[in-house]
């Protein structure tokens, strides 16, 4: 665990302690389970985003994708009465294909990631709204899918299955990012794509793979979100979720210039963001301040991190200077 991650963990614990002191109900198992459920949902989304950010890209369309894929999933199983495993596979595949198209536009046709995914943001939500004719996709009363609901919204030993899913995904993705050749190439491309190309790496494919991973994880979390809300108004569902995901990554030490960040960081970033939302409700802070609190904490977090680095560098420098001066005097 890097110093940065450790700092974030401490922040999370400190905030948690303060909230628990003010309102001890914060530590009720049910509250922890509820919050960790959402950590699971947003965490999966944020890991996908992190893979794209590492390459120096960005994926702005995830919020709209959560709406589109969620709408389709519910429509498939609730209205078209498809078997849910089939619908599940279809949605995941669709997420992967959309990621592939983004990757293709970015690497082969050399469009900027911001532009491609901004268009995605606009288009997918539009398509979802058109699909439902600006209505809502939802289950009928009493429509139930026991296995699916257990996997998506159930609990095992009190722990939400979505959170367990996040842990499994996080472990796998940690290995991929920090131990595999693919992960190493991702970091390299994020820092210096030209040089990676000169080293004989098929950078296009690697970057495309990152967008596919993001698409697949987004699709997975879209299904989770759909099963959580059980009803989707495409006009608003998932709005701004790309910002949550990006904010989690940034809090977790990712640089939007690429080539920096750790998987643990993005998970901790997600945890902090959800803790903040939980805090707003538990401490009875006006809901209108929810976003402001989030923005304020991100800003302070990034600022402290940055200033702490500067401060340490300067202290080291000063120490060395003092030591040098003392040595010179002794001579």
């Amino acid at each position, binding site marked *: 665990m890097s110093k940065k991650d450790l700092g974030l963990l401490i922040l999370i614990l400190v905030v948690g302690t303060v909230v628990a002191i003010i309102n001890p109900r914060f530590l009720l198992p049910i509250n922890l389970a509820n919050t960790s459920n959402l950590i699971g949902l947003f965490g999966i989304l944020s890991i996908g985003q992190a893979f794209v950010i590492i390459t120096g890209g960005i994926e702005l369309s995830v919020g709209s994708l959560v709406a589109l894929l969620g709408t389709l999933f519910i429509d498939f199983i609730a209205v078209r009465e498809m078997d849910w495993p089939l619908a599940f596979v279809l949605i995941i595949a669709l997420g992967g294909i959309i990621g592939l198209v983004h990757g293709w536009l970015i690497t082969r046709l050399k469009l900027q990631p911001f532009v491609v995914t901004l268009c995605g943001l606009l288009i997918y939500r539009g398509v979802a709204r058109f699909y439902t004719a600006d209505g809502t996709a939802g289950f009928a009363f009493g429509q139930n899918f026991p296995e699916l609901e257990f996997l998506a919204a159930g609990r095992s030993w009190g722990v939400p299955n979505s959170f367990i899913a996040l842990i499994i995904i996080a472990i796998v993705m940690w290995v991929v990012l920090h131990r595999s050749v*693919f992960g190493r190439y991702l970091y390299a491309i994020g820092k210096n794509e030209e*040089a990676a190309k000169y080293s004989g790496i098929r950078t296009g494919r690697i970057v495309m793979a990152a967008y596919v991973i993001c698409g697949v994880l987004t699709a997975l979390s879209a299904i989770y979100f759909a099963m959580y809300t059980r009803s989707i108004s495409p006009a608003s569902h998932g709005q701004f979720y790309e910002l949550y995901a990006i904010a989690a990554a940034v809090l977790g030490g990712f640089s939007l210039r690429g080539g920096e960040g750790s998987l643990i960081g993005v998970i901790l970033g997600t945890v902090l963001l959800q803790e903040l939302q939980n805090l707003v409700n538990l401490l009875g802070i006006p809901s209108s301040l929810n976003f402001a609190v989030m923005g304020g904490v991100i800003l302070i977090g990034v600022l402290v991190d940055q200033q702490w680095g500067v401060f340490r560098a300067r202290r080291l*420098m000063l120490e060395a*200077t003092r030591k040098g001066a003392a040595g010179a005097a002794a001579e």
Partner: protein
Amino acid sequence: MAQRLLSGMMNYSDTSIVASAPFLSLEGVRKTYPGVVALDGFSMEVRAGEVIGLVGENGAGKSTLMKILGGVTRPDTGTITVDGLAHDGLTVEASIGSGIAFVHQELNLFENLDVAANIFFGREPLRAGPLKLVDRAKLRTQVAPLLKRVGANFSADTPVAALSLAQQQMVEIAKALSIKARLVILDEPTSSLPIAETDKLLDVITALKAEGISVIFISHRLHEVERVADRVVVLRDGMLAGTLSKSAINHDQMVKLMIGRMLKEREKAAESARAPGSVALSANGVRTSAYPDRPVDLDVRHGEILGLAGLVGSGRTELARVLFGIDESFGGSLLLDGKELVLGSAADAVASGIFLVPEDRKLTGILLDLSIAQNISLPNLSAHARRSLVSASAEAATAEKQKSNLGIRAPSVATRTGTLSGGNQQKVVLAKWLAMNPKVMILDEPTRGIDIGAKAEIYGLMRALADAGVAVLMISSDMEEVIGVSDRIAVMHEGQISGILDREHFSQENVLLLAVGKRPK
């Protein structure tokens, strides 16, 4: 394998018997860029175990040729035959696959990865299993001997971001060695290496040759070429100007083929026309971030060229950055013409007439996307503007003047500097400062990657500046240059000035002794 080794050894013992089929041959290679013919029907061949020195003026097409071999660019016409297999053009993978290793002129390392990861990048040892996990232990054991071989003074897990330029160049070389290559291309690998490291590199080349590996070695330091090359290929304007076999290789011949006439390079620059004047810039107890515990005292006088020598990482670049206001100084003070000088930024330095030609051209020297004229006018834009509005004609006029003064080779002053050859880019960096009135001119490796003709011109320019009363501080790792050009030589050792030599004490030995912290004779 044994046979290859054997033939390699034979090559080594007697270069004249090399009659085996060439490993690589180029036929009529032509490459054009809009407005420029970089290579014009060039042909050459490289035999196994042969060291070829490739020389030519800036913009002659050397790097272009190597980029074609490395698979980075495709030639318009011509064939490349590797190991008997003919290609119209190579891809990076094909090039690596045929055993060609390439150290680029501009460094291509990943700052966020460590040294080991960089050296084996793209060829990581893998653990068993389908996941393609990196075998980190194996990687470490493989890297250690390579680092030793290039004489690295840093460990395999250092992040590249923490290395100096020269150290990074060592990493690049270690990388080339790590490839089981049959041909190693070194595009100006020594351009920022000081003498000790250069020696090590030349030894590495000799050792490669002994293993039957071919080397193409590009350098503007002709004496290095003289030392290791079996054959010298000279490029001029994208065409083959001539080939010199081992016995015919000598400095003057190379120069003659390169620029078509003989040259007396340093004589012009050597003698100062006037006695040095008062102290222009004086650093008192300045400390830099590289060595915050070592104060530096240094005076540069009007009308002199002060050479600043030292080993890799001795802190010269850091000192230059402090003097130019880019980095803050940890304690100490600066005096300009006896008056206290406080530098908050490079803009302050420029305003008081202190200019810097930085060592990293691509990142800090010029703006590759701007035209020559725009680069030259940039530091002094208000002089090219009326009521804050830029006058393109004034810019062009200044640039034209500098272009002809310095002999910048480009279709026009509106050419994007990114398309110029390295040497011509360096001239643009110089030009932007020469167009203003320097009081103190700091040059960090000013002739890095500059051809011999242009070098002479730059030396001449430096001397002219000094004669006009400018204080010139020249940081250089090129021993000949330091001794040949300077009026005095200051030597740095681990962040401090270990001594200053006057002209009568100039010698390679003295500089080297000071550089390692010993007393000169």
